[in-house]
C-alpha cells in the first residue's frame, strides 16, 4: 500500500517535471520566435526639445530623461540624435551648474556626466529637424548629426515643447505643422528609412500632431487630446522653475522599471499617466501599425538590439608588414617662427589680392557709357578708338 502510494507520488512529480520542462521550452520557443520576428536589426532615437529660455527648463529635462532611459537600455550615442534648443545645465541662472534635475529636491540628475548633444542652441530649427529625418543634409555634415537608419531600423522620435492644435513651436520663432511632419514620415517610408517608428509627443494638444499620419508602421503617443493642455509636474523652489511635465515624469517612472530583458509591451505604455495623474488624457494611435501592440516590446524601441553571430571558422590574420623607417633626410635645422617680428610687420608688402573679373554692375555701367557714346557720336568713330 505504502509502496503504491510512493510510486504514485513519484509518478505525479515526474509528470509535473515534464510539464514544467515542456512549458519552459514553449516559453523559450515563443521568445525565440518573437526575437526573430520583430524584424529590426538596429535602433535609433531622435529626441528633440524645441523650447528656448530658462522658464522652459522642464522641456529640456523631459528630453534628457528620455535620453537617459534610452541610453541606459542600450542605444549608444552614435545612434541617438539629441537636439536641445537651449542650454539649461550651464545656464547662468542654474544654481547647480552642469545639472538638470527631474525630481524636486534634486534627486535625479538627468544630465549626467556622459551626455553628447548633437544639435544645440540655434541649430534646432524646423529645417534641420526635417533634414535629419529625411536624410537630406549637406555633404559636410558629420556622422553624429545624421540619422543613418536603414529599412531594418526601429526609430523612436520624441518631441516636446509648446504646441497647439496642429502645430509645434520651435524656439519661439517658427512652427512645424502636423502635415509637414506626416509628409516627412512619408518621405522616410518611401526611402525605406525605417522599419517601425514610435512617435511620442509631450505638448499641449499633442494628439493633433499625429492625426495626419498616413505612412504604415507608425505608432504614436501623445500626452493630451485636442483641446486639452499638458500640465507640468512640480516646481523646485531652489531652482525656481517647474522641473518636468507630468506625462514625461510618469513615463520616466515607468521606464526606470524597464531593464534590457524586460518583457513589458506597448499596452503597458499606453496605460502610463491616466487622467487621474496627468489631468490631461493621453492618447495613442495604432491603426497604422501592422503588429499587435500587445506583442511589441518596449525594448523594441527604447532598447537596442544586437544580434551576435557566432562563427566556428578560423580567421587568418596577415602578418603585419615591417614598418619601414622614415628616410632621415639630412635637412637643415628647423626653427620656430618669430611670434611678433616687428621689423617684418612694419615693412610688410601689401597682400597680393587675387584678381576677380569685374562685377556685373561695373560691366553694366561701362556698357551703358559705351552705348550712349556711340549712339551720340556714331559708329564711325570706332576705328579711331581701336
Amino acid at each position: 500500500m505504502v509502496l503504491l502510494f510512493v510510486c504514485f507520488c513519484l509518478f505525479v512529480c515526474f509528470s509535473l517535471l515534464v510539464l514544467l520542462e515542456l512549458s519552459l521550452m514553449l516559453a523559450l520557443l515563443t521568445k525565440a520566435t518573437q526575437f526573430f520576428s520583430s524584424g529590426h536589426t538596429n535602433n535609433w532615437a531622435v529626441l528633440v526639445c524645441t523650447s528656448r529660455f530658462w522658464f522652459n527648463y522642464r522641456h529640456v529635462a523631459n528630453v534628457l530623461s528620455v535620453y537617459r532611459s534610452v541610453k541606459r537600455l542600450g542605444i549608444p550615442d552614435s545612434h541617438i540624435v539629441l537636439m536641445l534648443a537651449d542650454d539649461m545645465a550651464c545656464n547662468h541662472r542654474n544654481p547647480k551648474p552642469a545639472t538638470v534635475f527631474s525630481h524636486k529636491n534634486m534627486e535625479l540628475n538627468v544630465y549626467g556626466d556622459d551626455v553628447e548633444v548633437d544639435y544645440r542652441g540655434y541649430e534646432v530649427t524646423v529645417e534641420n529637424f526635417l533634414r535629419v529625418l529625411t536624410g537630406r543634409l549637406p555633404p559636410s555634415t558629420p556622422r553624429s548629426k545624421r540619422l543613418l537608419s536603414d529599412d531594418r531600423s526601429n526609430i523612436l522620435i520624441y518631441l516636446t515643447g509648446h504646441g497647439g492644435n496642429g502645430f509645434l513651436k520651435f524656439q519661439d520663432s517658427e512652427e512645424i505643422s502636423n502635415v509637414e511632419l506626416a509628409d516627412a514620415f512619408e518621405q522616410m517610408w518611401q526611402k525605406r528609412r525605417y522599419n517601425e517608428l514610435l512617435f511620442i509627443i509631450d505638448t499641449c494638444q499633442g494628439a493633433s500632431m499625429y492625426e495626419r499620419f498616413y505612412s504604415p508602421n507608425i505608432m504614436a503617443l501623445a500626452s493630451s487630446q485636442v483641446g486639452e493642455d499638458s500640465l507640468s509636474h512640480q516646481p523646485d523652489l531652489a531652482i525656481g522653475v517647474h522641473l518636468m511635465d507630468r506625462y514625461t515624469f510618469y513615463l520616466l517612472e515607468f521606464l526606470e522599471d524597464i531593464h534590457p530583458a524586460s518583457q513589458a509591451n506597448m499596452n503597458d505604455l499606453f496605460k502610463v499617466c491616466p487622467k487621474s495623474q496627468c489631468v490631461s488624457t493621453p492618447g495613442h494611435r495604432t491603426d497604422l501599425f501592422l503588429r499587435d501592440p500587445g506583442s511589441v516590446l518596449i525594448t523594441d524601441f527604447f532598447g537596442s538590439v544586437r544580434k551576435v553571430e557566432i562563427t566556428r571558422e578560423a580567421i587568418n590574420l596577415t602578418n603585419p608588414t615591417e614598418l619601414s623607417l622614415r628616410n632621415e633626410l639630412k635637412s637643415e635645422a628647423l626653427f620656430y617662427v618669430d611670434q611678433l617680428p616687428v621689423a617684418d610687420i612694419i615693412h610688410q608688402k601689401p597682400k597680393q589680392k587675387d584678381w576677380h573679373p569685374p562685377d556685373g554692375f561695373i560691366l553694366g555701367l561701362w556698357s551703358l557709357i559705351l552705348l550712349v557714346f556711340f549712339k551720340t557720336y556714331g559708329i564711325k568713330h570706332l576705328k579711331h578708338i581701336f
Partner: protein
Amino acid sequence: MAALSRKWDPLFVLVLGSLVFSCKGDVLKTSNDRTESISATKIEESSPQAADLGDLRQSDEAESNEDRKAFTPPPPNDQFQEEMVIRPLYSGDIYASFQFRTQWDTDFLHDGKKVSHYRLFPKSLGQVLSKFSVRELHISFTQGYWRTMQWGQPFIPSPPGAELWVWFHHTVTDVDGNWKELTNVLSGIFCASLNFIDSTNTVEPSASFKPLGLGNATDHRFLRYATLPREIVCTENLTPWKKLLPCGSKAGLAVLMKSEKLFHSSFHSQAVHIRPVCKDWQCTSTAWELRQTLNVVFDLYTSGQGKKEWSLFKMFSRTLTEACPLASSSKIYVDVTDNPGGELFDLSPSSPLISTAVVLGDRRTYSVYDLTKKETFGQLRSLNLLLRWKGESDDMLRPPLHAERYVSGFGLQKGEIHTCLYNSHPYRAYPVLLLDSLPWYLRLYVHTLTVTSKTRENKPSYIHYQPSKDRLRPHLLEMLVQLPPHSVTEVTVQFERALLKWTEYTPDPNHGFYIGSSVISALVPSIVAMDTNSTRDRPLFSSFFPTKEESSYFMRVYTEPLLVNLPTPDFSMPYNVICLTCTVVAVGYGSFYNLLTRTFQVDEPSAPLAKRLANIIRRLRGVPLL
C-alpha cells in the same frame, strides 16, 4: 535545471547575445559547458561609438602579443605626459591648469603612406589632420572671462566662447573649402555649433597668429581665424574632449574632471592645440604634438565657501589614486613662490621636490609631486593636496599688459567702440599688435579711428584694414601700436548699426548680438631672463609659446566680448498688421459695398399672436387674410 541547460545552451547564447549591452564595451562569455565546441574565448563586443571618436584598444594589443610570439612590436614612437599646475591667486581664488601632451613621431601630410595605426594619438584628430592638410590647429572653448587685474596672467590665454584658428599646409589649393569642411567635422567631434563659422565671421589675419610650431613659410593666405563668442561650454563639450585622452577619464589626472565642479567656477577653458615640434634636440625633423589643456579658476565664495583653504577634494570632489599607466611623466606643480618659509600657507603632504621655472617672465618656485612614484600617494593610497592659509598675502604685482573694451553711446543707431590698453611697466615701452574682427552689421567709420596715448596721438606703425562686405565678410583691423611706458592707450572708432533682414535675426534678438574679443599680441619685457633653448626638458606649462630672445616673452591678451543691441523689429507686427488691415477693409469696404448694392424692401411688421392665429384659421377657410 542542469538537464535543460545543456540542451538549450546555444539558444541561451543567442538570446543572451541579443540582449542589450551598455555603451561601454562589455564582454560576453559563453557558458562553461560548451567551451570545447564553441571556439575559444571571449566574444569581444566593442561599443559602437561614433567612428570619429577613436579609443584605445589595449586588449587588442595584448591579444596580438600572445598570438604572434615571433613578431616583436616596434618601439613606440609616441609618448604622453600629463601635468597639473595649482596656483593660488591673490584674490583668494585658486587656479588649476591641466596639460596633457602627446608627442608622436609620424608624418600626416606625407602623400605616399597613409597613417593607419594609432596608439596614443586620437584617431579622430589624426584623420582630420591628414584629410584637410592641416599644419596647425588651435581650438578652445571657454566659459567666463579671465580677469587679468585680479588673477594675473594665464598660462594659456583664451577668449570667451569658441575660438578656432588653423594654419593649412602650403599644398592646399582651396583653403576656404577645406576650412568649411573642417569646421563641420570639428563640430561633430566636439559637440559644438562650430558649423556656424562661415565667411561672415572668418578672417585672415595678416600679421597676428603666427604659427606656434616649426616651419619657415608664413604665407598668411593659409591662415584662418574665427571666433564664436556666443558659444556655450558644458558637459557635452567636455565629454568628447576627455575621450581624446589616452587614459580617458579613468586614470591619471583626468579623474579629477567632474563636470559638476568644473563648471561651477569663475572661469573654465578647455583647448586642443596641435602643432609640429622638434623631434629631438637636433631639430632636423618634426614630430606632431597634441596638447589638451584645461584651465579652471575656482571662486573663493561659490566653491570655497568663503574659507581660504583649498584641497583637491574641495576643488574637484575627487582625490588622485594613480598616474595614467600610459604616461611617461605625470606631475603636479604647486606654486609656492609667495610662500618661501611656509608663513603664508601650509601645504600638505609636503613634497621634497622643489623646482623652479621661468614662466611668464618671472621665476617661480614649485613644489613637485611625481605621481609615477608610489611614495607620493602615502599610506592611504590617495593624494589629496591641502593648502591652508595662515596669513594675509601682499598685493599682486600689476600685470604688464592689460586691456579693456567697451561700447559707448546711446540709442540704436550709432555707437563708439573704445579699447583701452594699459602698459604698467615703469620704464619700458613695447609694441603690441591689436587684431579686431567686427561683424558686418556694425558699419565702421574708419576715418574716426583714433589712437591716443597720454592724451597725445599715437600713430601706429602698421595698419591693415579690410572693409566688410554685407553678409559676406567681417571687418578686419590690425594695428601695430607702440605702448609708451606707464600709460593708457585708447583706440576708438565710431560705428553705425545696420538693420538686418527679418530672417537674419536670432530667435532671441532682444538679448543682443555678441562681438568677438579683440586679440592683443605683445612682446612684453620680462623680469628675469627667459630660456631660449627650446629643446631642453621643461615643464609643459612653460614651453607653450616659443621664446626667441631673453629679455621679453610673447603673450596674448583677450578683451571682453561686447554685447550690442541692434534695432530689432517687432516680430508680432506682421500678424497685427494683417489683423488690423483685414478688419478695416472688411468693415469699410463691406459697408460701402452694401450701401451700393443693397436693395430695400418694405416689410410688414409681424402680427401679434391673436392675429396670426386668426390668419391661420382664415387661410384654412379660404378667406382673405387680415
